[in-house]
């Protein structure tokens, strides 16, 4: 990444250091990404939840490391890297799912933050107004693009981190750990499911990195900080949004600031994430105005759709496809490193086919399990992986059979 790629780089700010990159990603976990630790702890126990958070995030770190490595040489964004490995059709389909997922994430973040603030201040019938107001304000801020996100995150992250430490220290004496320290597959998958789509999108941010070493250090720091943030919700025993409460006005101000700043960062990041998709549709128009339009569309979607059933379904579906895309990219990269001994003429078709297969199986599972997002994501990922492995197995076996048996017979 240290040398400039051949293609002209059309985005700004290519000198972000590890701290800036890590601050952006860590500050943008959002309330749903933080609370997932507490939610899992309430289902499988604190001990298993802690191991799930650690193992789940380490697996995500591995996936992130691979995806960043894939994107680094050409400073690709998430869609460009998909195009490179899955071809043009793959890029177009990924763009559509990324945009669809953006609306889901934007709505989810606004909904969760406005719901908690609404309950904390005992407001009446003002949740939509609050969420829409915050959404419009975030859209306004997004005019500053990546530079504003960088400066904002670097300023905001220390506050978020210190708040988490302060609150965790307060809650630890109340914690009664009488649980078995064990591993939980469901817990690990639950943790992975909460941020896997974000990991797949990392290249869109890491293309701004100063160097490879900055990227890798940022990824490690980000993983550590995310683990700490998710521990916080376990320690605070936040099993759902209604369990978030405070005992005094000082804590109320701190918690509200934490939620609002966290929401602002995560949705600024969401807008920028989706820009990878918009850049594919409108390749010649890259300006702050586009981010504002995206943010306003997200706010409109929140106001009119909120967390309606169809929206929830579409969001889970998009996450199934993005999750299986991540796995296929990972496997394609590994195969590309390993398989040098034979040509792979159908490489992109195979990858797209397996990816879509995984996504479709996940969506069918989603319908059958009444929108169980974690389970359908597991099925999507597993189906895509198995399909890919089966195809590679067949490809490799046929090629080796041709060379080892048929070619030998011809020689004889």
């Amino acid at each position, binding site marked *: 990444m240290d040398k400039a790629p051949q293609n002209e780089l059309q985005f700004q700010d290519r000198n972000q250091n590890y701290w800036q990159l890590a601050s952006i990603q860590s500050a943008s976990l959002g309330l749903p990404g933080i609370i997932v630790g507490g939610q899992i702890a309430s289902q499988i126990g604190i001990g298993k939840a802690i191991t799930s958070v650690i193992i789940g995030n380490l697996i995500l770190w591995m996936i992130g490391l691979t995806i960043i490595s894939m994107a680094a040489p050409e400073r690709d964004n998430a869609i460009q890297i998909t195009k490179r490995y899955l071809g043009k059709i793959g890029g177009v389909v990924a763009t559509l799912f990324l945009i669809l997922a953006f609306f889901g994430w934007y709505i989810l973040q606004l909904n969760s933050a406005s719901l908690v603030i609404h309950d904390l201040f005992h407001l009446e*019938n003002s949740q*939509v*107004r*609050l969420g*829409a*107001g915050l959404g*419009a*304000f975030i*859209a*306004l801020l997004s*005019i500053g693009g990546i530079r504003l996100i960088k400066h904002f995150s670097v300023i905001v992250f220390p506050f978020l981190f210190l708040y988490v430490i302060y609150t965790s220290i307060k809650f630890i004496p109340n914690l009664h750990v009488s649980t078995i320290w064990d591993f939980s597959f469901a817990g690990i998958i639950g943790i992975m499911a909460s941020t896997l789509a974000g990991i797949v999108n990392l290249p869109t941010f890491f293309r701004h990195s100063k160097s490879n070493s900055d990227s890798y250090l940022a990824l490690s720091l980000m993983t550590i900080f995310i683990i700490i943030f998710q521990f916080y919700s376990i320690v605070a025993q936040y099993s759902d949004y209604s369990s978030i409460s405070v005992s005094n006005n000082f804590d109320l101000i701190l918690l509200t600031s934490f939620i609002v700043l966290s929401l602002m960062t995560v949705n600024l990041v969401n807008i920028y994430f989706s820009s990878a998709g918009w850049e594919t549709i409108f390749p010649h128009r890259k300006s*702050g*105005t586009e981010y*504002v*339009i995206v943010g*306003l569309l997200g*706010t*409109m979607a929140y*106001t*009119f759709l*909120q967390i309606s059933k169809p929206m929830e379904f579409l969001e889970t579906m998009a996450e199934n496809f993005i999750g299986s895309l991540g796995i296929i990219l990972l496997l394609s990269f590994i195969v590309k490193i390993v398989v040098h001994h034979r040509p792979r003429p159908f490489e992109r078709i195979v990858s797209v086919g397996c990816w879509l297969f995984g996504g479709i199986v996940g969506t069918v599972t989603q319908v059958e399990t009444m929108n169980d997002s974690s389970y359908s994501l597991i099925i999507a990922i597993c189906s895509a992986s198995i399909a890919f492995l089966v195809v590679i197995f067949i490809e490799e076996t046929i090629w080796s059979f041709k060379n080892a048996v048929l070619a030998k017979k011809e020689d004889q």
Partner: protein
Amino acid sequence: MNQIAKLEDTHQSSWQLAMIQLAGWTSLPIIATSILVLEGNSLWGAIATIVVGNAILWFLRIGMIAMSQENRWSTLDLSSAYLGKIGSYFIAILLLISTFAWFIQQTTAAGTTLTRLITIHENKEIDQFTQMSVFLGIASAFLCMEGMVLLKRLSVIVFPILALAFFAILFTLPPISSHINDNRFSLSGLTLILATNLGITSDLPTFFRHSRSLFDSVKAITAIQIISLGLGLCSLYFGSIISRGFEINDRIVLSPDHEMLRIALIVFVFLSVITANVANVYSASVGWELVAPTALVGRKEYLIMGLGLTTIYILVANLLSLDYLLNVSDGALVNLCLVLILGYILSLRLKRSPTSVEQTTYFIAWLLASIFNTLQFAGVFLVEVSPFVVSLSSIIVVIALSFIGMRIKGLIK
């Protein structure tokens, strides 16, 4: 101050100039001013008042345009020339406050009206007013993005639709007899018409600096005045659907017999509020350019202002009343218009630009009149007298005293 070099789009025709004003300011509350005139007047008296009022407005507006045409000055440039540098900062802030109050008040009124007029069957817990407000606010913000360029296109498209909707409303109104009353013939509503329209008049230079020529500007002003006169006279028949506070009378409009009226009203209210908001943001942009940091000025300023106002609007709509702020800012704009016109007449007579002493005089006259109005609206001072009369009197007195003083000291001949 001379902005010809950096000002975009300086070739607008009389038609485009007129469309921007008519589409930008033709809203239900402004049209319904005629109803207020009729309340204290006979029908013929109201008609005469509207005709005379529009004739005076035409004359004053020609004066405003003549002042700014040569150098293509905006309202703020004019303020700087006549009220001095400090005065221009006051006016910049006034323009921003006025836009803020109008944007919120007008969009809230439209949101309330449209929520009543449009029936959406959804969960009762969903606040439809908020949904409508967000939609109106965001639609306005989208259309503010390109400043004058988009405003011009929008107005040219929207005004014919607004006019059609207006006549559809007029022809589908239920028959009424309330507009014929026993009041005596008088011109008592003249100050009301002037007070309602002079605030807008002070904004005209900002829009007319884009004119192709003075002749186009005069044609546009004449067209605006004739069409406004027609709309004002027709609006006398709006009494049956507009109740006090300029709210739509639900009982009549929502009855199944008046479906066409309901649709025409929806179109009219929606388009008028959107265009008015875009025009408002553009008029305030000159103020923003003076007071905002350089980084926030330029092509993005319209977007920043539009979206900033939208965000505030979403959060405060229907929660706090801005009537007082609206009255005060409107009063201050009327005063600005009066001061500028008097200043222009005096400059023509003296055959030179205002000196710093004269600028200070005009600024004090404007400030004093605005303070008097503010106290009047707060109900602590001269409550019984029309704010317009108080403004005009105080401005004339201050300017007269200052000029007498200057003549005594030999500063003017």
